[in-house]
């Protein structure tokens, strides 16, 4: 149960980035698949180089944000459709991530530095993801390489024997990020960014550049995704070039799940919605992994289910009748006021 919550929070952070691009900016940015793995690759690389985990995470977020800036510039300056711009950057990042990791993956060794002098001790426990990514082929060579780091890796912030410690840490990180994003969206810049999502040309009439807003917006979105990629890697104990595959679909499904709970009326609640959506998604994933085999499901079917979920949600939205919903809402309000009277 703890693992489900923890993984759900990490996915929620990633979906927060998707929320910014899809719901705030109204820009379907597909860079996410690449920037998630990029955040992980950068974070683990710096961690192995001895950079403290907190700084490595921030560097992962910053570089992830850089990927968003590249997408925004390709989209705005070269007049490339944002979908294609995202695909181009995502494709580039596959090669970039291989370069960064000097291979398809980069495990974090189970030995961690206990002091700044670089002495090491064995840490108990293993993969916190509980076999979720067992289909990824981690080469033994990579493990060996990671076990004998040249400069000594810094200490991971997650421990497999920490009880609820990981959950508390992740909750604090998510809480701080959600509050930060919420406050940002209320500032002058955040407000005009939200306006940009509903009327992109309108912001120009008030002297605001669409390019600058796209750059800042996609930097924030992919920065959040890169940050979650870093957390995912620290939590799972590895970075992998394909760990971001299909993340945009997962992120969108999580955003939609959150919106089922909170609705879309108040977009600022959307900042919190992905967190709840992430936990729900991870819960469903855990159930499928645990009991799904009885009806023939495999963990690898989850991406199919996730994509189908989005298709069903879009189809349902076509059949929704706003007037009917309004009538129901009015009826409920009437009943409520009657019940009080």
């Amino acid at each position: 149960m703890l693992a489900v919550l923890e993984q759900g929070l990490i996915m929620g952070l990633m979906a927060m980035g998707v929320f910014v691009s899809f719901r705030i900016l109204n820009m379907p940015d597909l860079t996410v698949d690449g920037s998630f793995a990029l955040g992980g690759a950068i974070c683990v690389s710096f961690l192995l180089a001895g950079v403290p985990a907190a700084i490595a995470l921030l560097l992962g977020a910053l570089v992830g944000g850089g990927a968003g800036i590249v997408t925004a510039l390709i989209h705005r300056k070269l007049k490339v459709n944002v979908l294609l711009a995202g695909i181009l950057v995502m494709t580039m990042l596959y090669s970039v991530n291989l370069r960064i990791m000097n291979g398809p993956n980069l495990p974090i060794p189970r030995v961690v530095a206990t002091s700044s002098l670089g002495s090491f001790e064995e840490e108990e426990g293993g993969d916190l993801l509980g076999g979720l990514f067992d289909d990824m082929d981690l080469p033994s060579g990579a493990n060996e390489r990671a076990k004998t780091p040249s400069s000594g890796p810094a200490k991971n912030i997650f421990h497999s024997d920490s009880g609820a410690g990981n959950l508390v840490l992740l909750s604090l990180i998510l809480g701080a990020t959600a509050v930060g994003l919420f406050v940002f969206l209320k500032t002058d810049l955040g407000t005009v960014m939200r306006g940009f999502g509903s009327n992109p040309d309108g912001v120009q009439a008030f002297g605001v550049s669409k390019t600058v807003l796209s750059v800042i917006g996609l930097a924030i979105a992919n920065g959040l995704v890169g940050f979650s990629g870093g957390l995912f890697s620290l939590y799972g104990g590895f970075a992998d070039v394909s760990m971001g595959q299909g993340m945009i679909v997962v992120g969108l499904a999580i955003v939609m799940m959150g919106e089922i709970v909170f609705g879309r009326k108040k977009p600022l609640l959307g900042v919190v919605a992905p967190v709840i959506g992430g936990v729900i998604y991870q819960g469903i994933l855990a159930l499928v992994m645990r009991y799904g085999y009885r009806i023939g499901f495999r963990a690898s079917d989850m991406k199919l289910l996730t994509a189908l979920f989005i298709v069903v949600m879009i189809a349902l939205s076509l059949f929704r009748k706003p007037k009917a919903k309004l009538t129901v809402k009015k009826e409920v309000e009437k009943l409520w006021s009657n019940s009080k009277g």
Partner: protein
Amino acid sequence: MVELEGITVVYNPGQDNQKVALEDVSLGVNNGDFLVVVGANGAGKSTLLKVLLGEVEPLQGHFKVNGKVQTDRSPSRRAKTIGRVYQDPNSGVFPNLTIRENLSVASRKGMRGLGFSGIPQKVLEHLESLDLGLEKRMETKAGELSGGQKQALAMVMAIASDPELLLLDEHTASLDPKSAKKVMDLTKRINEKLGITIMMITHNMEFAGTYGNRQIRVEEGKIFEMDSPVPEAVCGKI
């Protein structure tokens, strides 16, 4: 004073579908004028506004504001001196933001920071002067307003940061007659009380005659003062 000197705009130059949208157009608009621009569809009226907004680059000619040639064509920079309201009520407001947030965005021009700016008193006074009760619905989303209310809000937003010139492109065309009249009355008040220069495109000849203090006609990319004779070549098209 706003001046256009020898403006020529050609769409798709050198191609089979080349079109001369404006041909050697010169026009002076005095401060405080309420200029009405009329003409058939495709005559070049909207191109004229796009040149002013920096959205279309003229092949020849230049545009001056208070004697200064405007060389920077960036629409977001031009917007610092020029306000605009278009035909679509949703184009002048941010439907997903509240009235308060819309006015807050409009109260400043240029890039925003991480502060929390309020709404200047004069902007609230403009809103109250609409007499639509919008000042009592500050937390209502702009998208929930009627077309006329949206256009009225868009007008207040367009003048919130004291533009030199306000461009109106058929801004009452999609409104019912009652709402259109209210928005036109507001337009006149903005011109008379605030002294903002207005350039308004319209097909409504009644509004053109009632509200404007000067009228021009655009035909086949050329400008004629309303009291000038219509050339024979374009007589049948008006």
